[in-house]
C-alpha cells in the first residue's frame, strides 16, 4: 500500500497544527461559530445530536494493521469504544470532545492518516473497489490511480470552496463494486482498441434528494491526462454549479440542466487550457505509484475446497463470506459487521484490535473497508480459512450474511445524526429479528437492503434492491419503501411502491415483497431481475392488499 514520504508526513502534521490553532481560536472566542464551522467541516468535524462527529478518511478503503490499531486506541481513549464504517469507506467516531479533536488528529498523523476533506464542500475521500488488485475480472489495479487523485485533490487550492461536496470513485473491473455511477465523477479504467490503458469518465451521478445515474463525459481519456481532465471538470463545476440553492448545488444538477453534450463541450474547452500544463501524469510517476501496490509475497499453493466435510456453519460462512481471489490457493475473506443486534458498520475497539492481529497473521497486515460497511481480509490462504473463521466467529465477526438480505447498508440515522428524520439502526434491528432463518435468507439469494434516515441518502437507499427511506410525518418516524434499485455497472434507481409505512410495519412490508418474489421468480432469477421483469405492480398490490400488521 502507499506509504507516506517526508512531504506527506509534513503536510498532515502541518494540518494538525493548523487545526489546533483554529480550534483554540474558536474556544477563545476569536472565531465565531459560523467561521469555525467552515473550517472544521473541511476537517471532517460535524456537530451532531449528542457530540461532535469526526469522520476519518480511509483512502480507497485501505488500512494497515498499525492504522487499525491506532483507530482502536482512539475509539477507546476518546470515544465510547467503537467506530462506525461508512458507505464511503471512512470511519466515524460519534463521541469525541471538540477540544480533544486536535489530539486525535495528531495520533492519526503518526500512522499516516487524517480527516482532511472528509466533509465540507470540497473533494472528498476517493473510493474504490474493495477487491482491487485481487479480483480475477480486473483490467488493472485502480489503487495507484486513486492515490494519484488523492494527492492531487488534497488541499487543492482552487477547489476547497466548491458549490457542494464532490465525490470521486475509481474502478478497474467491469463489475462496479464502488457505486461509481452514483458519484459526482466515476473513473473507469478501460482499454481502447489498440490496447492502450486509459479512462472512461462519468459525471453527474448522485443520490440525495435528486438521485441521478452518472453519464459518460468521455469514453476514452489517455491516462496521462487524468488529472488535467478532472481539473477541467471541477473548474466548470466550480464556476457554473449553483450556489443559490443547497439542494441544487451538486454537479448532477448542472449536468442535467446543461445536458451531457453541452456540459462535455464546456469541459473539453476548459481542458484545452489545462492539458499540457504541469498536471500531466508521466510514466515515471505511474510506475512509482504502481510500485506501492505490488502483490504481496504469495506462496505457491494449490486451490482447495476448504469447506468439504466441515460443519454446516463453516460451509455457510465460506460460501457467503469469502470470495474468489486471482491467485491460486488464496481467498478474500469478509469480516461481517452486520451481526443482528449491532448497528450495521459498527466495530468495537477490541474487534478492531483483533482484526488488526488477524490481518497480520493471515493477510499481510492489511485490511480493507467495503462500501457495504464490512471489512475484508484480502489475501487469506484457503487452507487457513477454517482457523480464521473460528476466531472471527468467537468475536461476533462471522455472521454468514455477506450479500444477503441482512447485509444491510445503513446510515447512523436519528440516533446520532442531526440531519436524520427517522431511525435506521432500530429498523435494521427489527428486520434482523424478523428474518432470522438462514435457510430462508440463503434461499432468497443475492439481495440488498439499503436504508437512509433522511433524503441525504447516506445509506444509498435509492440504489438498494429494497430501499428504505426515513421520513418525518407530523413528528413520527415513517418509512418510504422502494424496490428495483441497483448500484453496480447496471445501476438503476428504485421505484417507490406506495404510501410510507410505520416503523413497526417495515419488516412485514419487506416480508410481503419477498413473498411475491419467491412465488414469481424464475430459475436462478435474482430479486432485482424479478422486479425489473414484473414491474412494481404485483409487489405493490401484495403489500397494500391487507392492513399491514405491526
Amino acid at each position: 500500500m502507499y506509504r507516506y514520504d517526508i512531504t506527506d508526513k509534513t503536510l498532515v502534521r502541518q494540518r494538525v497544527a493548523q487545526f489546533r490553532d483554529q480550534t483554540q481560536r474558536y474556544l477563545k472566542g476569536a472565531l465565531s461559530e459560523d467561521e469555525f464551522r467552515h473550517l472544521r467541516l473541511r476537517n471532517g468535524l460535524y456537530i451532531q445530536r449528542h457530540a461532535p462527529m469526526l469522520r476519518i478518511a480511509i483512502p480507497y478503503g485501505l488500512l494497515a494493521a498499525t492504522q487499525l490499531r491506532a483507530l482502536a486506541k482512539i475509539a477507546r481513549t476518546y470515544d465510547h469504544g467503537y467506530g462506525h464504517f461508512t458507505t464511503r469507506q471512512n470511519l466515524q467516531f460519534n463521541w469525541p470532545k471538540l477540544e480533544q479533536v486536535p489530539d486525535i488528529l495528531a495520533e492519526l498523523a503518526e500512522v499516516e492518516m487524517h480527516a482532511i476533506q472528509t466533509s465540507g464542500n470540497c473533494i472528498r475521500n476517493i473510493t474504490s473497489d474493495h477487491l482491487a488488485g485481487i479480483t480475477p475480472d480486473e483490467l488493472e489495479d485502480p489503487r495507484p490511480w486513486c492515490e494519484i487523485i488523492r494527492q492531487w485533490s488534497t488541499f487543492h487550492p482552487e477547489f476547497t470552496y466548491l458549490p457542494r461536496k464532490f465525490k470521486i470513485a475509481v474502478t478497474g473491473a467491469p463489475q462496479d463494486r464502488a457505486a461509481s455511477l452514483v458519484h459526482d465523477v466515476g473513473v473507469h479504467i478501460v482499454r481502447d482498441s489498440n490496447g492502450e490503458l486509459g479512462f472512461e469518465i462519468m459525471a453527474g451521478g448522485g443520490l440525495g434528494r435528486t438521485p441521478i445515474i452518472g453519464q459518460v463525459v468521455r469514453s476514452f481519456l489517455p491516462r496521462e491526462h487524468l488529472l488535467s481532465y478532472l481539473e477541467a471538470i471541477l473548474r466548470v463545476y466550480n464556476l457554473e454549479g449553483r450556489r443559490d440553492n443547497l439542494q441544487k448545488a451538486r454537479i448532477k444538477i448542472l449536468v442535467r440542466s446543461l445536458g451531457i453534450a453541452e456540459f462535455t463541450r464546456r469541459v473539453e474547452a476548459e481542458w484545452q487550457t489545462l492539458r499540457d500544463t504541469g498536471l500531466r501524469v508521466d510514466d515515471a510517476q505511474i510506475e512509482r505509484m504502481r510500485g506501492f501496490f505490488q502483490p504481496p509475497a504469495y506462496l505457491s499453493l494449490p486451490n482447495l475446497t476448504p469447506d468439504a466435510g466441515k460443519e454446516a456453519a463453516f460451509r455457510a460462512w465460506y460460501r457467503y463470506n469469502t470470495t474468489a481471489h486471482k491467485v491460486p490457493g488464496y481467498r478474500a475473506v469478509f469480516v461481517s459487521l452486520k451481526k443482528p443486534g449491532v448497528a450495521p458498520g459498527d466495530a468495537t475497539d477490541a474487534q478492531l484490535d483483533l482484526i488488526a492481529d488477524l490481518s497480520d497473521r493471515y493477510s499481510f497486515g492489511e485490511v480493507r473497508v467495503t462500501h457495504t460497511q464490512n471489512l475484508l481480509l484480502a489475501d487469506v490462504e484457503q487452507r487457513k480459512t477454517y482457523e480464521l473463521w473460528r476466531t472471527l466467529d468467537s468475536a461476533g465477526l462471522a455472521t454468514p450474511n455477506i450479500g444477503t438480505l441482512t447485509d444491510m447498508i445503513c446510515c447512523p440515522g436519528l440516533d446520532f445524526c442531526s440531519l436524520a428524520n427517522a431511525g435506521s439502526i432500530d429498523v435494521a434491528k427489527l428486520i434482523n429479528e424478523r428474518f432470522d432463518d438462514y435457510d430462508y435468507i440463503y434461499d432468497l439469494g443475492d439481495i440488498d437492503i439499503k436504508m437512509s434516515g433522511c433524503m441525504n441518502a447516506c445509506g444509498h437507499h435509492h440504489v438498494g434492491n429494497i430501499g428504505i427511506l426515513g421520513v418525518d410525518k407530523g413528528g413520527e418516524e415513517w418509512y418510504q419503501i422502494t424496490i428495483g434499485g441497483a448500484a453496480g455497472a447496471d445501476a438503476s434507481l428504485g421505484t417507490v411502491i406506495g404510501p410510507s409505512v410505520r416503523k413497526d410495519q417495515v419488516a412485514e412490508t419487506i416480508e410481503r415483497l419477498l413473498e411475491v418474489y419467491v412465488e414469481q421468480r424464475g430459475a436462478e432469477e435474482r430479486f432485482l431481475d424479478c422486479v425489473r421483469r414484473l414491474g412494481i405492480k404485483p409487489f405493490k398490490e401484495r403489500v397494500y392488499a391487507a392492513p399491514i400488521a405491526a
Partner: protein
Amino acid sequence: MQRRLLRDGQIVIDDWRYVAEAADEASAALILSLEQWRLEPDTWLARGSRLGVVLSPADRVEQLAPDLRHFALIAAQFPGPSEGRGYTQARQLRDHWNFKGELRAMGYVRRDQLFFMARCGFNSFELSETDIEDAHSAFSTFTAAYQPSNDLGLPHKLRTAVATA
C-alpha cells in the same frame, strides 16, 4: 480612513480607491466595477490614472480578457465564506491570461483562506483589522503542495515525487 491591506506579504496602506471613495482625488488609482468600466471605458482611460476592476463571482474572466491590458489591478469578490469562484478566476487570470498586475481578494477574506488564495495567484488581501496583524503566518501553513500552481514557490509533489524517487 485609510485602508490597510496585506500585499506581497507586507502590511501596507492601500494606494487604490474604489470609485465611491475617490470623489475628491482626481489622480487616485481607481478600482471600478465591471459595469462602470463597460459603460464608458474611454472616459476612464482619459483620466490617465491607473485602473483596476472588480470581478463579481458570476463574472467570467474571458469576458474581461480583451480589456486586461488596461488594468493594473483586478479584485475578486468573496461575498461570503462559502464563495469559491474567485479561486478559479484567479487561476485563469494568472495561468491562462497571464495577468501580471495586482490580484486582490476582497469581501469575506480571512487568514485561514490566505494560503489557498495565494496559491491561486492572489497577492493582495483586504483583511479585517482583527486578522491583518497575524495573517502573514498563514502563508507558511504548509511548506509543500501536491499540485503545480501559481504559488508561493512551494515544491510541489507531482514533480518532486518523481525527482526524489
